[in-house]
């Protein structure tokens, strides 16, 4: 195994439901900024995280138009994490569970997101320094 660390994450939560999704992306971001190779296997609702049809919206309660509100979009965060990983000499690799995508109809994803299966998670786990599962509850 090379000196470069590789860590695999398995995520399950959909966007906009609870703090675990943001916490997971924080952890992934830290690993990316350290130059690690980071693998993410998105399972079930997590396949919605890199869905590119997420759209910003205004917020009348805040008194903001869409630009002022700058509403968080997980697919934008993930794209930024991928750029950070590359700048730090690492790589963010992301696989969406294909069947999970099909049943949710969230086929439009970031360009680097690939379609896969639990077999991919296992192959990543075998070739990584460690694997962290962040399941839904």
């Amino acid at each position, binding site marked *: 195994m090379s000196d470069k660390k590789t860590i695999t994450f398995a995520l399950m939560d959909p966007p906009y439901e609870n703090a675990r999704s943001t916490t997971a992306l924080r952890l992934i971001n830290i690993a990316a900024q350290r130059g690690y190779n980071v693998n993410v296997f998105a399972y079930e609702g997590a396949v919605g995280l890199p869905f590119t049809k997420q759209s910003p919206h205004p917020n009348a309660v805040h008194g903001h138009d869409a630009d002022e509100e700058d509403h968080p979009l997980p697919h934008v965060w993930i794209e930024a994490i991928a750029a950070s990983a590359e700048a730090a000499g690492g790589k963010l690799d992301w696989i969406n569970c294909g069947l999970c995508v099909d049943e949710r109809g969230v086929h439009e994803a970031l360009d680097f997101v690939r379609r896969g299966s639990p*077999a991919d*998670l296992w192959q990543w*786990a075998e070739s990584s320094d460690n694997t962290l599962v962040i399941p839904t509850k």
Partner: protein
Amino acid sequence: MALKVLNIVESAYRATLEEQDDTILWTTTAMRGAGADVDVLLRGNAVNYGVRGQDASGLQFGERKQTHPPRLDNDVKRLIDKGAKVYVLTDDAADRGLEPTDLVDGLEPISRSNIGKLCADYDQIWHW
């Protein structure tokens, strides 16, 4: 050395009617089919997955009858038959009034006090 993983399933009945199975039992079965050395520990409400004869059929919305309900006891048995060890936490089963005779054959009982020793037999623990 080949990786050995214990999947601890605790979140139970999460969308099992929509998914027609428990997604972690499913992914465990799929990974084993790909050659993975992965076993399962059922704890919390997931101990109920081992109860034989459970029936989730009958879902109907309007005229739309949903066929193929989840068969979680069958899914547990399938894993066992395919060579996986499926442990059930006896403390959690007892808390829910389950007797050993309520459970499918082949489940391996383990007490809470022995979970640490069990985990030591695996390279990684994935807690779902």
